[in-house]
């Protein structure tokens, strides 16, 4: 089974039915898999804070949401996380491509990578870092933890996890 199929299987198994995405090269396979699944309403966003608004609406409408985005998005979503998702206490799994980590070829990506965990920690967002493919084994438990606690939760997936880039 591909890692993309495995991730999306876990989303579906946890009743996630509404997924918004902003693309990243590393996430292309997951996004294609999400798009192919009948169980999931896939709604691409133009910006990640817009996506968080969509997810908040879906959650209040009774559907479990998730957002797929790049770590650079942390820079544009802090307000939406603090004053919408956290303030109204909503769950939101964030599957994030962690650009700028080991095996990253583009230097500029490192500039946000060095702030990513610090920003998530400052926001008190439970954060998990997938570095080896076997780390995906924890995804199911992370998703359950997210909906149990009604919090945004970050899963950072780096280039090594995706098998190089």
């Amino acid at each position, binding site marked *: 089974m591909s890692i993309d199929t495995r991730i999306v299987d876990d989303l579906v198994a946890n009743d996630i039915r*509404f997924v918004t995405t902003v693309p990243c090269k590393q996430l292309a396979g997951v996004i294609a898999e999400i798009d192919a699944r009948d169980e999931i*309403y896939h*709604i*691409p*966003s*133009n*910006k990640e*804070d*817009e*996506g*968080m*608004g*969509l*997810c*908040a*609406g*879906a*959650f*209040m*409408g*009774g*559907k479990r*949401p998730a957002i797929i985005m790049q770590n650079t998005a942390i820079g544009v979503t802090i*307000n*939406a996380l*603090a*004053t*919408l998702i956290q*303030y*109204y*206490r*909503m769950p939101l799994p964030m599957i994030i491509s962690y650009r700028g980590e080991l095996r990253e070829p583009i230097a500029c990506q490192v500039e946000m990578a060095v702030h990513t965990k610090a920003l998530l920690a400052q926001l008190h967002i439970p954060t998990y870092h997938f570095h080896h493919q076997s780390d995906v084994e924890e995804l199911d438990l992370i998703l359950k933890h997210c909906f149990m606690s009604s919090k945004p939760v970050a899963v950072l997936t780096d280039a090594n996890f995706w098998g190089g880039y």
Partner: protein
Amino acid sequence: MIRYEVLQNIAPLLRDHLVVCNIGIPSQELHAIDDQPSNFYMLGTMGLASSIGLGLALSQPKTVIAIDGDGSVLTNLGTLPTIANNPAGNFILLIVDNGSYGSTGDQPTYTGKKTSLAKMAEAAGCDRVVECQAEDTGTVLQAAIEAGEMTIIVCKCQSGNVKMPVITMDPVVIRDRFMAAVQA
């Protein structure tokens, strides 16, 4: 006619539907005019009323009316193509376009100058876009509810606010009673 008067006029139409109301004075005014559990008041996050409303409309069958402002839509213009390409027949976006940032001191926005949000919505691919004068908002909104087609309403009104108390309700209470209204 200013936003407060528009909200007063349409309040009897709003109370039977799910409403997502824009941050700041619009929410304070609606809360003061006719507080309902079926109103979701945004206390933060300028710009996302239309996105929250669309996500809600796509996830359940009841009619959703998102009350937004020209300034807020301008901060989240990407919402228009997303709305256009994910049509929900139960979604109405009512943009109260007073050409100003009402909650921050009525500084002018570009919609009071050369920019047309109705034309931008059409260019984004929204099929049913209606621009109306403030006095006609109730008639246009009623028609949109009955049409069962996704509609963007741009209501042109005058700039100005009515001083209302800040909403002190806990956000989780707002969200919880709103979700109960969604399920009811």
